């Protein structure tokens, strides 16, 4: 299967790989996994007190499309408000990376990772 140029670019030069200090109270983490392929994705967001995502990091074990999807998401969410980031759809990711139908689940995983991280943010806020 041929990967698009954008997937290859993110795969070869992944943006924002790594982790934040998990004891930093402004950091939230989204952990998700895709049983069908065994991919595991961790997305961390550092969100300031105005609800703006200042920085993002990811770590993904999976195929090129899964790595590219999470790498792209870290670029997209930076500078966005929590609400704006929550509005990112898997279809936007799939379209940007020109993912073939069999790899759509990678973009779904990346969307779910944002959602999981923002869920943690919301539960922290309500405390």
């Amino acid at each position: 299967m041929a990967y698009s140029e954008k997937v290859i670019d993110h795969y070869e030069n992944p943006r924002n790989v790594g982790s934040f200090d998990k004891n930093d109270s402004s950091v939230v983490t989204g952990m998700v996994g895709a049983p069908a392929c065994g991919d595991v994705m961790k997305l961390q967001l550092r969100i300031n007190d105005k609800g703006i995502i200042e920085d993002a990091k990811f770590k993904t074990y999976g195929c090129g499309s899964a790595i590219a999807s999470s790498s792209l998401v870290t670029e997209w969410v930076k500078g966005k408000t929590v609400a704006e980031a929550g509005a990112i759809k898997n279809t936007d990711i799939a379209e940007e990376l020109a993912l073939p139908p069999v790899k759509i689940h990678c973009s779904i995983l990346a969307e779910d990772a944002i959602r999981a991280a923002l869920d943690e943010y919301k539960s922290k806020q309500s405390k």
Partner: protein
Amino acid sequence: MNYFELFSLSPSFDVDTAILAERYRDLQRAVHPDKFANASEQDKRLSVQRTAQINDAFQTLKNPIQRAEHLLALKGLELSHESTTLKDTQFLMQQMEWRESLEEVSDSDDPEAEIEALYASFEAFAKPITAALKVLLLSDLVAEHLQAAEQIRKLKFMAKLQDELARVEDALFD
């Protein structure tokens, strides 16, 4: 299609693999396309179809994860082709740690011992999941079927880890 019926087995997570293999050979022999060399086109086509079906059934029943999925499908819960995301953070953290360990095996002083230790920890971790799955699959309650599905998803991650470890092992010792 009930694969257990096809193999004259009672639908259960526990399957005697020797009996399964024996029935597979018998079934295969009965419908083998060579036997239909002089038969009508329709019978030939049917024999090819039956052979494919028997092969699918055998592969499904032989593999514990696929067997469990088939049992759930018979109970009305279809898991194949699903793209459900697993969100159990603790479980996924452990997966991530193990993936990291797999990357570090080749740098270890004693990779062989490291690989053995990882296999053992994967097995120890999967054992209670499989045990829970077995009990849940006996139930007729939808809530328990949904729990069984969650155990199957976890076992898929464990199978993936085993595959990855086997790959690391092959790369090191071949």
